[in-house]
């Protein structure tokens, strides 16, 4: 064992039915260290953290705290042992004061001693330089301060290991700075911090070490100076940077009409979800992609195009004509379709039948007073169930009882039925089986060959390279590059994603 290790995890395994979520993963956290835990979706980061905090029980391996083997059975257990967690979403009560949020649920005795609580809280806030008053209502603080109060609560319960699970995703630059200075001061006090984030720059700003996971396995532990960004990205994505063969598909891109008027063109499109204004255009028959790590703003961009969130400004042209797209219906009427990232929350209407889910978009476009006849709807549903080979007992089955891949196909069918000129697919291949993934990619290419424009987003670079002829690269809410032709290879993409010195 290492001398100053506060936490050691050795050979951790965790299995879910049919999935090996973690296999033989080691992780070491040393005293006074900020340790980044990196990996793309499904790499096993959150599973590892949940094992550590007692949400999941491990199927194998040991955990030692300061050299002593421990069994962590519940989140309460973890807290008592000095492992505190601050989650991405703030898990405090906005209606209570800052001081109360720091102490509620932890005090003994039936009475609340406000005076003592407030002075204690004020001391702690001061020692951590958190710009909040103990008696202030939490809801009146900025998100960053709320996040810091959560950290203060965690730190106060005598914690040795602090887990920060994507705490920065909703903070702006200033707020991140404040958070970092807090992290650094905790580090000086000897707290070991596990930092989970998708922002590369932040990792290089505050972290000492990086552990990379991929597909539930440990890729390696690195000292930050030894691992340049590009290397990190390639480790996360699982492609060796130098000897990576170019696998650009030989798909003929002749059907793209670059000379004509773009099917869709946006200028200084501004959303309200924290992305910088961006320009974008797409031509007939083109497949393009937005890439970047999770949280880089790629989904927010396409949501802005579709009008899914409030649009703050910018001009939009469809087929050269200026149009206003403020809400989804506007976009749909202009021939834009959008398959959302979060299938469960934004895509399916769970209790409704497969048939109703398929015809929903076209039906809404057709109008409230002109419903499809039952036989017409039946015909549409049957056509697309057959076309996309959706596995369902009947078109009457509620969509929620289908498998993830088939649900996704139903949503795809919905938008194909709407017969768009421009189709946006945000992570259509997430969480579905390999076979369906390939089917969906083939379908995208087929649609493009038929003259439709498609935006395709995926966390898997392979898929993007295979299907897209142009990539918009994003980092931290900004468009940082556009790649096409021979630039469309893993090396260049990763270098652009990583940015900075490459």
């Amino acid at each position, binding site marked *: 064992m290492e001398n100053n290790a506060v936490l050691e995890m050795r050979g951790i395994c965790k299995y879910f039915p049919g999935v090996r979520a973690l296999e033989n993963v080691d992780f070491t956290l040393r005293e006074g260290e900020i340790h980044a835990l990196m990996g793309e979706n499904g790499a096993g980061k959150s599973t590892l953290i949940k094992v550590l905090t007692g949400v999941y029980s491990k199927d194998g391996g040991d955990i030692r705290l300061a050299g002593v083997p421990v069994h962590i059975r519940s*989140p*309460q257990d973890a*807290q008592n042992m000095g492992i505190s967690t601050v*989650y991405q979403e*703030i*898990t*405090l*009560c*906005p*209606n*209570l*004061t800052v001081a*109360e*949020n720091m102490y*509620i*649920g*932890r*005090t003994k*005795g*039936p*009475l*609340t001693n*406000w005076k003592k609580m407030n002075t204690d809280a004020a001391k702690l806030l001061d020692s951590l*330089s958190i*710009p*909040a*008053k103990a*008696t*202030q*209502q939490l*809801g*009146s*603080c*900025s*998100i960053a*301060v709320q996040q810091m109060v959560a950290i203060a609560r965690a730190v106060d319960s005598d914690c040795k290991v602090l887990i920060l699970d994507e705490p920065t995703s909703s903070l702006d630059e200033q707020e991140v*700075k*404040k958070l970092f*200075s807090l992290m*650094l*001061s905790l580090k*000086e006090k000897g707290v070991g911090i596990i930092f989970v984030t998708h922002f590369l720059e932040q990792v290089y700003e505050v972290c000492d070490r990086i552990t990379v996971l991929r597909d539930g396995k440990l890729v390696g532990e690195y000292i930050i100076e030894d691992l340049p960004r590009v290397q990190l990205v390639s480790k996360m994505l699982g492609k060796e940077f130098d000897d990576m063969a170019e696998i650009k598909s030989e798909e003929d891109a002749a059907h793209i009409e670059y000379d004509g008027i773009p099917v869709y063109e946006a200028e200084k499109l501004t959303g*309200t979800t924290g992305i910088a204004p961006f320009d974008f255009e797409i031509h007939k028959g083109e497949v393009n992609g937005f890439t970047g790590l999770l949280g880089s703003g790629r989904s927010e961009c396409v949501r802005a195009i579709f009008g899914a969130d409030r649009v703050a400004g910018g001009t939009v042209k469809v087929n050269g004509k200026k149009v206003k797209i403020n809400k989804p219906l506007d976009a749909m009427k202009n021939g834009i379709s959008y398959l959302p990232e979060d299938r469960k929350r934004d895509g399916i209407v769970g209790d409704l039948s497969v048939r109703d889910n398929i015809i929903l978009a076209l039906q809404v476009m057709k109008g409230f007073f002109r419903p499809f006849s039952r036989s017409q709807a039946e015909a549409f549903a049957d056509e697309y169930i057959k076309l996309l080979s959706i596995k369902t007992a009947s078109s009457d089955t509620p969509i929620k009882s289908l498998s993830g891949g088939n649900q996704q196909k139903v949503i795809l069918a919905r938008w194909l039925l709407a017969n768009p000129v421009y189709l946006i697919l945000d992570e259509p291949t997430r969480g579905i089986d390999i076979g369906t993934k390939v089917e969906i990619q083939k379908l995208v290419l087929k649609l493009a060959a038929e003259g439709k424009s498609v935006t395709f987003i995926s966390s898997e670079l392979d898929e993007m390279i295979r299907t897209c002829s142009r990539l918009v690269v994003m980092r931290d809410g900004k468009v940082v590059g556009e790649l096409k032709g021979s630039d469309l290879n893993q090396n260049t993409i990763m270098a652009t994603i990583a940015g900075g010195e490459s």
Partner: protein
Amino acid sequence: MSNPFEKNSNKELSAKSLKSRVSLTDTNLLLFITIAVFLIMYVCAVVFLGKGFAKPQTFLNILNENAALIILSCGMSLVMITGGIDISVGQVTALVCMSCAVFLDKHGGNVYVAMILALGIGLAFGLVQGYLVAYLNIQPFIVTLAGMFFAKGMTTIINATQFNVENAQFKALKATRVTVPGLGSVNKLGNYIDAYVEIGVIVALLVVLIFFCVLRWTRTGRNFYAVGGNNQSANTLGINVRRTKFTAHLLCGLLAGVGGFVYFMHVGSGSPSHASGAEMNAIASSIIGGTMLTGGVGNIAGTFFGVLSLSTIKNIVTSLGLDEAWWTNITVAAMLCIFLLLQSILLARKNKQKS
């Protein structure tokens, strides 16, 4: 701290952010509004509607008339702070009145046993409703709506008509008045008349005091706020959400029992139509008193002033010559509507600020 400059900038920032944002909790802000509304209303009444309102006894009569409502509203506020609602309290009050009346008069019961009976009925409603809401996760509205109708039905099953209680022990208790020194007035004949309150008012004030303290200084009380503020957060903060919700409904039921008996002492009779609509008055008082329907915000002191505001406006409407019953109802509804919208706007503005 490694960087002294950064520390400085933090301090600056803190000073700035504190200055721009008044450090006032929602609870206190709404409480402030309520007290202000009440005072303004009362002063206006005194100034424009004459001396009737200036007499201390007029104010004390408001308390006498509304002692039961104050108690019911306290219970309602507790439940509303945890994010629930209880609309059975009015009919439980009627049931308590009827049960006690029948017990005292037709079974020759003892007043103290009647009190226990009243508490028992309230507790039973609180227990069942609390269990259904907290442990079976059924919407509180549906549960207590059923509770309301059950109480209503039971009242008529026990006795379908109104009758006055003639039990001597009870009559003595009912007639007991507590004089308030120094607030008496001289009547037209020149005699000095003591100002008084009924026993119910003492009970009501005690309830207000106790639950004000409970909410302010006990762990259970603070848990109410946490659960109402954010269910899931409260859970991760180590609070037993179900038990907290259950406790709130239990206490509300118990207070309905207490309020029922106080109402009974005030009217001295049993009738199926007693306290009809009291639940709506209690909800309205709580809302006017600054309790948010969404939970997590509220104050018993506010509720107390909410009841006073509500009854003052009723008195004003009456003394304006609009003494038909509908006017008071319409004013209550209008006031409720205004305060509801106020809360909704307050909430919306806050959410906007955040994003």
